[in-house]
């Protein structure tokens, strides 16, 4: 029964909602200005690539044309309403006005005007349809290819052009790394229901539909860190099916590829910490330009891209013993059944590839910041973070009997977190 439980939580939450909301009032003007701000992480207006720009420019065309029509028609409507309003009772009951029936000439010219307005919209629309559909002919040779596969509720990314011996194409999850300044051609696949691939700043969405070979192209103007999200309702946790796209300069990208192709990092007592696996272009000063955003997880001192680069380096104080214990637990607790860790024990394919998971900025499909605290939260209660997800249903508990398959103590979790964080 939904109703009683709903009513209960409504009561319980009512006060909390207001409490949560009150700081918003305090920020006052900034807060209200923020309605019109269009520069969020997923803005379709402040964009960073040619495809998204073409789409935005087309939007501007439609916007201006309709705005002009709105102003003209609205003005006439407003004028008519005010001008012909009956001012008083006498006016209302005056002899009825002339019972005119219309004027064909007026009608036809208005229709013509509408058609004209639509033509203004239609021409750039047609242009943009062909432009956004496929990589321009001239650029085709330069295009880079990736395959994105959607799962309920995460993404797998494969690089068909980067095979690893005896393994197949390079594969990673939830954070797609692409070369900046090059068109990227993405094949879109799904293994279960319909999902949609959407990185607003780079390109509009294209759906990932079972039994359908969809594709999409996009391009990032410059290196950057972009927010993406599944945009087709795909079940319970659709809202938290997110991902990131990281665009890197040529050298950085190659360095990243080399690091990814390597097997998982093994931390021993003697070789703890050590060098980062890849060297990236120097970190840049970053001025935050997003006042008012209550940024929960981003590190305020770093640009997201630099934050990402930092994540690539091993943590300074790794505890080799704890990590080894985590690695053991990873097998014992059947994690290996679902996760691949290339070079280590896991070979499962139900869950994301964890070979270099420590080097990602987020976990659980772009939902949580990748830090020990959030990792522990995820490993302890994946169901609370992502209702209905397979790691819990089927992994932690038996779906049929609803009985737990194993238990995790706090110490287990700490060890697992240490291990997973070490997988850079």
């Amino acid at each position, binding site marked *: 029964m939904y109703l009683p439980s709903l009513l209960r939580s409504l009561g319980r939450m009512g006060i909390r909602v207001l409490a949560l909301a009150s700081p918003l009032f305090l920020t006052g003007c900034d807060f209200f200005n923020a309605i019109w701000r269009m520069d969020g992480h997923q803005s379709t207006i402040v964009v960073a690539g040619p495809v998204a720009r073409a789409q935005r420019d087309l939007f501007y065309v439609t916007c201006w044309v309709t705005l002009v029509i709105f102003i003209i028609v609205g003005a006439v409507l407003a004028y008519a309403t005010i001008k012909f309003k009956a001012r008083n009772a006498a006016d209302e009951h005056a002899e009825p006005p002339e019972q005119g029936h219309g004027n064909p000439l007026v009608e036809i010219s208005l229709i013509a005007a509408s058609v004209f307005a639509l033509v203004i919209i239609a021409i750039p629309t047609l242009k943009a349809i062909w432009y956004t559909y496929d990589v321009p002919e001239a650029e085709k040779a330069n295009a*880079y290819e990736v395959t994105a596969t959607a799962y309920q509720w995460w993404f797998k990314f494969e690089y068909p052009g980067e095979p690893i011996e005896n393994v197949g194409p390079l594969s990673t999850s939830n954070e797609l790394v692409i070369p900046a300044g090059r068109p990227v051609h993405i094949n879109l696949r799904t293994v279960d229901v319909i999902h949609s691939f959407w990185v607003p700043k780079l390109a509009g969405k294209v759906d990932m539909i079972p039994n359908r070979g969809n594709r999409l192209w996009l391009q990032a103007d410059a290196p950057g860190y972009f927010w993406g999200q599944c945009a087709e309702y795909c079940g319970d946790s659709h809202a938290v099916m997110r991902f990131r796209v990281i665009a890197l300069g040529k050298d950085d990208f190659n360095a990243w590829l080399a690091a990814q192709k390597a097997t998982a990092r093994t931390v021993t007592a003697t070789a703890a910490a050590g060098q980062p696996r890849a060297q990236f272009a120097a970190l840049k000063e970053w001025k935050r330009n997003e006042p008012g955003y209550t940024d929960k997880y981003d590190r305020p001192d770093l640009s997201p891209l630099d934050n990402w680069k930092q994540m690539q380096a091993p943590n300074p104080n790794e505890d080799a013993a704890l990590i080894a214990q985590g690695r053991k637990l990873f097998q014992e607790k059947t994690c290996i059944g679902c996760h691949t860790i290339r070079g280590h024990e896991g070979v499962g394919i139900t869950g994301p590839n964890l070979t270099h998971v420590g080097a990602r900025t987020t976990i659980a499909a772009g939902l949580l910041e990748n830090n020990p605290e959030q990792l522990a939260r995820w490993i302890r209660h994946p169901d609370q973070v992502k209702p209905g997800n397979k790691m819990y249903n089927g992994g932690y508990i038996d779906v049929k009997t609803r009985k737990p398959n194993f238990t995790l103590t706090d110490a287990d979790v700490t060890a697992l977190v240490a291990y997973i964080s070490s997988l850079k």
Partner: protein
Amino acid sequence: MTSIAHAATADHGKHQDNKFEIYVQIAMLLAVITGVEIIMVYLPFMKALLIGGLVVLSVVKFMFVIFYFMHLRWDKPFCTILFFIGLVLAIGTVWALLQLFSVEDGRPLTAPPPEPPHSATAKAG
């Protein structure tokens, strides 16, 4: 064929006339057409031609049934219009759906995947 057409014209306007004969003749005709259709599929002709022929024949049957058995021929034209609104719309929708599914991009994955030609040449760096 001509006798039916003749009978029909003669009948026009006189509603109370017995339509027994014309019904029986049409039924015969329909049966014959069905026979022809069945034979046609085994003929070693051009496929496209046969498909065209089959479609035409079933349209002919269709029309005979609605105009004679269903009396559209003798009824007010509005009935015909009413039915054809639905019929035309249905045919149009079916046609559009078939078109939508036959464009190259709609190819299902089970068919050989439409690998874009440039995929092989694209390499990092």
